[in-house]
């Protein structure tokens, strides 16, 4: 499903050169739930960004569904993300000026859908995360856990094959964190969605199929 080979990422400023990722190779199978752990600054987020096609590696190759991604144009990349990938962030990134339903509909706006379809799909996605009763609320009226559930609904509304979650429980207490985790596990088991999750929390990581540890940009396990 996802194939990374010898990925290197170098950040350059005028004076300093930082090696964020050093020869990382990774193979993720379809339907796998993978977690990535490591201390701050080890390159977890960089790796996730590269998998999510938000960032390009300095060296190495990524294939998703056996398709090379290196030479895709901005527009093709955008379409690719839109169809195949779903994102969940630590700080939710909901648009505060839009109601919950509109937030969830967002990915569908960038593909060919009618307003009716969008509404239906978004309502279904919200039902899946148990927020059917908060459709007309604004993000500011929700708790952290509810916000993250909206973000999950947004990630799955487009039925992507892969979900990339960047510390989805990082801002939540353990009870809420477990709730979110349960939703993710359910998505993985019932729909067969491939999930890659970056986390700090050993307990969360234990619930996944496989754990990858990074240290100073290198894969240690």
């Amino acid at each position: 499903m996802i194939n990374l080979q010898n990925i290197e990422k170098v950040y350059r400023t005028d004076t300093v050169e930082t090696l964020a990722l050093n020869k990382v190779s990774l193979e993720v199978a379809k339907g796998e739930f993978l977690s990535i752990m490591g201390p701050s600054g080890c390159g977890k987020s960089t790796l996730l960004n590269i998998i999510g096609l938000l960032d390009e590696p300095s060296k190495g190759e990524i294939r998703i569904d056996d398709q090379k991604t290196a030479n895709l144009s901005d527009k093709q990349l955008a379409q690719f993300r839109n169809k195949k990938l779903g994102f969940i962030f630590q700080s939710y990134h909901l648009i505060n000026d839009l109601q919950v339903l509109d937030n969830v509909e967002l990915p569908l706006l960038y593909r060919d859908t009618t307003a009716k379809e969008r509404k239906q799909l978004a309502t279904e996605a919200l039902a899946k995360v148990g927020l059917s009763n908060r459709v007309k609320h604004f993000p500011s009226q929700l708790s952290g856990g509810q916000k993250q559930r909206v973000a999950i609904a947004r990630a799955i509304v487009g039925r992507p094959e892969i979900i990339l979650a960047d510390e989805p429980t990082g801002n939540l207490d353990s009870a809420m964190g477990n709730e979110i985790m349960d939703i993710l596990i359910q998505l993985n088991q019932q729909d067969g969605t491939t999930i890659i999750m970056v986390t700090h929390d050993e307990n969360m990581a234990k619930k996944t199929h496989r754990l990858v540890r990074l240290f100073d940009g290198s894969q240690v396990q």
Partner: protein
Amino acid sequence: MFKHLFKLIWNKKKQNFLLMSEMLVSFLVIFAVFTLIVYYYNNYKKPIGLDYQNLWVVDYNNTYNPKSTDSLNIFYENLRQTIKSMPQVKEISFCSDNVPFFQNQWTGDVHYKNASPSSDQYTVEDSYKNTLNMKLVEGRWFNKADAVAKTQPVIINEDLKEKLFGTEEAIGKLVGSEANKNDMRVIGVIQGVKAKGDYAPPRAAIYKRTDTGSFHWLGKIMIHVTPDADAAFEGRLYKTLANYMKNSNIEIEHMPNKLKSTNLFYVVPMIVTLIVACFLVINVALGLFGVLWYNINKRRGEIGLRRAIGASGRSVSSQLVYESLILATLSLIIGTFFAVQFPLLNVFSLQASVYIVAMLLSIIFIYLLVLVCSLYPGRQAAGILPAVALHEE
């Protein structure tokens, strides 16, 4: 997509309110400026109705007061012969004080059926038309035979014709100096003269022929001179006039200069308005630009997210441009509502077409302004790297 943008704007109405009111006020100011420009331009395009090059005006006061009208007429006929015999003089005509491009203005109502438009009243001689090179549109100009006509013959200009008769025939119709007193017959229609300069419309005007007693109160002489008439000739002419009319103050003025100073009355306010409007527009443009630019910085997270979930750079930048254009549209709808009141209520009695053209121009102008101000911030937004934007917070 538009519905989505509307929702965004509507939910942010509090923040957008000020931006919109700024666009609204700008629109109204620009509308006023364009109305002025369109009005001036329309007037400027119209023919001026006379040949003012080489046309001089002598201003005198009639202090010669003999007992008999005959000797008064002989006095001025002699003067006419003297001036006309000068080689630089092509044509000469005595007339009433209200000469085009001068402040003096004589107005009175002209009556026909229910219409009684206020009109400029000129008293002129047979030679007036050729001295000023006015254009006859219909009928004929005055001639000697008119002195014995039963009903007083008059000539009107196109503007008065339209006000009195519309599209009907004017020649031969009787009009009145007072209501129900049809004491004047229209014998000709001439092209309107823009008596207040290039930028003011020709006013309705009626021309009456001088009669035997007119010299008692006429106060101006129009002289059409040859192109080689210079200051030396003007000095001679001046001496001749001053020596002949001993007790009169004499002044000679040149019509091109008079036109220039009359135009100043319109041009100076125009220039001041344009300078002020320019300054306001720059001000508004900078303000819009600044606020839009800031908004984009504030929405980096949102933009990063949109990119992550599949919006291309171009669609993000056009989204931002569309957003500001929708804002502009909303303001313009309200602004147009106010602007439409001007032609509807006929404020300032300008033609409706002037307002409509001005309105269209201002709408285009505001759209362009907003477009220009949002293009650059929009482009900047397209350049936001989602990986960076999403990890800032």
